[in-house]
């Protein structure tokens, strides 16, 4: 940088490190302009000291990382927050032994084996059969609210829907739902880097209660099959011609909870906020529910529940102008890719009529979100039901607060609404 001449230079380019300080420093409510800035500096790839990874901001590069699972490994449990535990504590060790088997955090051939059983449960056809279950769970939750009522949806409805849906689809008996909700949140918090020390210990012990409960449920369905997802998974044959053992399966069912809960909660909060900011879109969807599926895709594009994912580089590789060494971590920035003007025209505009299908909200490649059809179905049912009951839903009197401390998942901390 040369010395300033004293003239104001509002367009002067900042260093990526300064932008990262803002982005990950826990104060910025609106991260989107920062992504726009990072994407256009140099080749759009910048090393973040804080994340200890190369943040990849352009669509083509982010997509390529997803396509090439050999060069970009997902075997990263040890470097995720979920991998933090005390190896001298037998209960922590038991937790890590199960939690490390999530197939999201594995490479082929382990990944292929587990995905082969899971994918059958999540085809668009399979998910269609769950629509009545999802609709039922959603309606029952909405029955608690009246037109005109003021409520913060984030700790209530937006958080309750995914737990109820997953519990119903898995086949968790009703009487266990409230306990199940508590366990789910405990387990999800093991993925939060800010949960350390005593709080982590408590979260790990709660997770083990959940794991033990799920193991019982799995054994019960083995003995006596029901019409639910656990039964489907118990009966599914892997590509190796055998069936998943209990611990192996348990980890994947637990994955459904973490991957399906907070993300869907954020989809609801982010989506409603977009409808508040774009009243003509809200009116159009309230008048014609056939527009909702496309609108949900646009919500996922412009404000995806997950902003960043991670991969470990297995061999030296060149992306953009960067040569990235073996062992380094890359962090494809999904939200930045989703607003890359090279792929989406007028990318910062929320347009429910556009073709958003190239968005990376579910990412790309062999780890493409296996639950995507379920998430899409939930989005459709939830927005349809909300707009039917509360067509004039609007922001509440208290301001909404965006979460600032979590760089990966930036949903709303509070989102007060008037129904």
């Amino acid at each position: 940088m040369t010395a300033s001449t004293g003239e104001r230079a509002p367009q002067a380019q900042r260093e990526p490190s300064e932008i990262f300080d803002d982005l990950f420093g826990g104060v910025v409510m609106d991260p989107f302009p920062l992504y726009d800035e990072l994407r256009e500096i140099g080749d759009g790839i910048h090393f973040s000291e804080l994340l200890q990874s190369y943040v990849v901001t352009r669509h083509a590069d982010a997509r390529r990382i997803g396509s090439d699972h050999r060069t970009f490994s997902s075997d990263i449990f040890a470097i995720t927050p979920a991998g933090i535990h005390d190896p001298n504590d037998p209960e922590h060790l038991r937790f890590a032994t199960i939690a490390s088997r999530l197939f999201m955090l594995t490479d082929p051939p382990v990944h292929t084996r587990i995905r082969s059983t899971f994918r059958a449960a999540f085809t668009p056809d399979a998910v269609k059969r769950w629509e009545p279950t999802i609709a039922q769970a959603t309606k029952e939750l909405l029955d608690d609210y009246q037109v005109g009522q003021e409520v913060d949806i984030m700790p209530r409805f937006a958080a309750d829907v995914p737990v109820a849906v997953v519990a119903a689809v898995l086949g968790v008996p009703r009487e266990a739902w409230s306990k199940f909700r508590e366990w789910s949140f405990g387990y999800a918090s093991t993925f939060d880097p800010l949960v350390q020390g005593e709080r982590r210990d408590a979260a790990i012990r709660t997770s083990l209660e959940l794991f033990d409960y799920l193991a019982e449920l799995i054994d019960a369905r083995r003995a006596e099959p029901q019409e639910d997802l656990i039964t489907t998974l118990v009966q599914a044959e892997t590509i190796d011609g055998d069936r998943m053992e209990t611990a192996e399966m348990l980890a994947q069912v637990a994955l459904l909870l973490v991957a399906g809960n907070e993300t869907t909660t954020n989809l609801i909060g982010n989506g409603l906020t977009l409808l508040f900011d774009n009243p003509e879109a809200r009116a159009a969807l309230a008048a014609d529910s056939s527009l909702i599926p496309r609108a949900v895709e646009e919500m996922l594009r412009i404000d995806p529940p997950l902003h960043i994912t991670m991969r470990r580089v297995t061999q030296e590789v060149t992306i953009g102008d960067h040569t990235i060494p073996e062992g380094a971590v890359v962090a494809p920035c999904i939200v930045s890719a989703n607003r890359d003007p090279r792929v989406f025209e007028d990318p910062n505009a929320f347009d429910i009529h556009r073709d958003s299908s190239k968005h990376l909200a579910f990412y790309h490649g062999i780890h493409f979100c296996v639950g995507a059809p379920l998430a899409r179905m939930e989005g459709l049912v939830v927005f349809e039901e909300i707009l039917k009951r509360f067509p004039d839903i609007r922001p509440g009197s208290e301001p909404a607060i965006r979460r600032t401390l979590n760089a990966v998942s930036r949903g709303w901390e509070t989102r007060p609404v008037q129904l």
Partner: protein
Amino acid sequence: MSNLEVVVHADRCMGSGGCRKAAPTVFGADSEGWVSLLDSMPSRDLLDDLLEAYDVCPVAAIEVLNDRWEPLT
């Protein structure tokens, strides 16, 4: 003009159906909805459709190669 080579990794398929829409003479589905390859050496005339199929496949299960097995994507 030489034909193309198409490879599908059926074990990755998630049944999105995008490839069948893009190139219906090359990609089909078995009785459970998983991808099957109808024509592994399609004509070059179909290149655009095949690249579209490659592009829409969420799980990157499709490869489009030239006759020397070099990727065209």
